[in-house]
């Protein structure tokens, strides 16, 4: 049996929201193999985003463990976690681009963090933006781009450091359905052609239908999984 690219065991997360104790995750066991395309569904507050943040090493579990390519994330220090995040392609619902940087600048920044040279990263940023269909918009700042365009920039950015997997938190939640279809087509193509392991949180049944696995969450637990 091969090592899964992502594995969580009895993952729990509790945090205080003001004075209220919130049990966001109540024991999640998830195993993702290389090349998987997972859709996570569930109402808001069911723990989807919390799970994704744990996998992306943005947050620490209260209990349980996350393994990325067999490595226990809880054993990593601050720098180790930073290194790990460089190999995670995160796409957020609200894009999270740096407003003062251009589309190209945003993609380049991702590559500048691990220390890639200016020339190389410039070339690669242009290639990536061309891949997501933004060849003509490289010099525009996020404010000058539409929601769909911004999300494409975010995807280009997520791919910049050749990540081990893509984590998408409602990537189409803030864009129109036509653009959303185009974006999902792009993600599916990446999964099929490049074998990019992808986890998508979505409310959209059409998107979920295209995933290889559908994971249903409720109240911090995985309640059902369908494999197509």
């Amino acid at each position, binding site marked *: 049996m091969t090592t899964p690219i992502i594995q969580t065991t009895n993952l729990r997360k509790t945090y205080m929201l003001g004075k209220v104790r919130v049990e966001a995750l109540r024991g999640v066991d998830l195993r993702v193999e290389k090349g998987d395309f997972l859709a996570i569904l569930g109402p808001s507050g069911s723990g989807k985003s919390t799970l994704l943040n744990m996998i992306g090493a*943005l947050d620490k579990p209260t209990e349980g463990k996350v393994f990325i390519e067999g490595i226990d994330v809880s054993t990593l220090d*601050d720098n180790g976690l930073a290194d*790990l*995040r*460089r190999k995670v392609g*995160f796409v957020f619902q609200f894009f999270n681009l740096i407003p003062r940087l251009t589309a190209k600048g945003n993609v380049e920044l991702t590559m*500048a963090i691990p220390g890639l040279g200016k020339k190389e990263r410039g070339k690669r940023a242009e290639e990536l933006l061309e891949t997501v269909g933004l060849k003509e918009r490289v010099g525009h700042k996020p404010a000058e781009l539409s929601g769909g365009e911004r999300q494409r920039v975010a995807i280009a950015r997520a791919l910049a450091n050749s990540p081990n997997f893509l984590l998408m938190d409602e990537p189409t939640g803030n864009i129109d359905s036509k653009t959303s279809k185009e974006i999902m087509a792009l993600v599916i193509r990446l999964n099929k052609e490049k074998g990019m392991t992808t986890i998508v949180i979505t409310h959209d049944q059409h998107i979920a239908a295209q995933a290889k696995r559908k994971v249903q969450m409720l109240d911090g637990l995985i309640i059902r999984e369908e494999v197509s």
Partner: protein
Amino acid sequence: MKASDVFSYAFSAIRLRKLRAGLTILGVVIGIAAIVALLSISQGLQNSISEQLQTGFATDTLIVSTGGGFGPGEMASTGSDFKLSVNHTQIIDEIENVDMSVAVIQKSCYVESGEREFRLTVAGVDFAKYADIYSGTFIAKSGKIPLNPENEIVVVGKRISDPWKNGTLFCDVDYTIKIIWTTYNASTLKPENKTYMGNVVAVLEEIGGFGLGPSDSSVYIPISQAQTFFETNECNTIIVKVENDDETTIESVSEAIEVAFSDQVSVISSTAVLNTISSVFATIEFFLAGIAGISLLVAGVGIMNIMIVSLMERTREIGILKALGMKSRTVLSIFLSEAVIVGLIGAAFGVASGWVLANVVAVVFSGGGLPGVGRGNHAATAGGMVITPVLTPTVFLGALAFGLIVSVVFALYPAWRASKLKPVEALRYE
């Protein structure tokens, strides 16, 4: 992340908020400018005072007096009844390395010429020796200083001749002036006036400023005449010319003189006076720099304030950077780089504007118009002094470094806080 990338990222953040960055920088500029201006003016002032002292007070001379006078405590009066006499020059002349010595009898007298009268210092000196010791200042501008005078003659300083600096002369060569000395009868204590009618034989070159040697506002009469006129052999000071101005020679001669007079005299060397002045200036500079430093601290608090605000505004951005895998120390160095940029620009502009300010102040201080504007009177003759502000490399580099250090130190806390943000919380920040 490469250092150059860290810097350009920091720079892009600064550029985004130009007004805010500009005001932050202005704070540093003001602080640094104050330091540079104050220090370069006081340095210039010190230089001009030292220079004038060296002109008026040859470095190879010593001044022997019975105490009091100019200088720190050790030279204060010995409290004895010892009086220096004109004949004491003979004792001094025998000391090794002494070239010559000249006694000065100095009294305050009324000097009359025509219908005007001034209270002036009248000094009795041996003209030949005095001119030799102060060969740079005891020079006749008009007339001739007689080397072996026998008559009742007078040599006057430039200001005595032309006190109003407008050509209306109080006296000039060939004038006869009247020196009135009031003495008190020893038994009756009644004042008695003695007069000395002196023929002006020379007017000195302008000396400028002040010094311990010849001065523009003194009247000189031959020592033999002074002894007769003032009816005394007692002299105020003896000026000693040492063979060279080597520090060890000066010291050994000073000591030898003190020993010769059983420590009843004090010996002042120009070096000692200059050292005293330097130490006084060092204190003043320290004080001024302290005041200016406070304004820089205020600028530092401003930097800290701005950076904390900026940190809050950019919490989400920091979250993004961390989510992209940026290490905490890189976040720290981005924020510190912003402070370095603000500090460097502020310090550079601060040094430049401080220098300009110093020059403007120097012109105003010197008491006359703008430089280059033709005026008959040189600033020095207008009673003031010419101050040329001096920006020493120490002050220049020190100010740059201080500006930089203050900026960075006050940015440490905000930068540290930024680096400690947790990515998931920072991303959630609205």
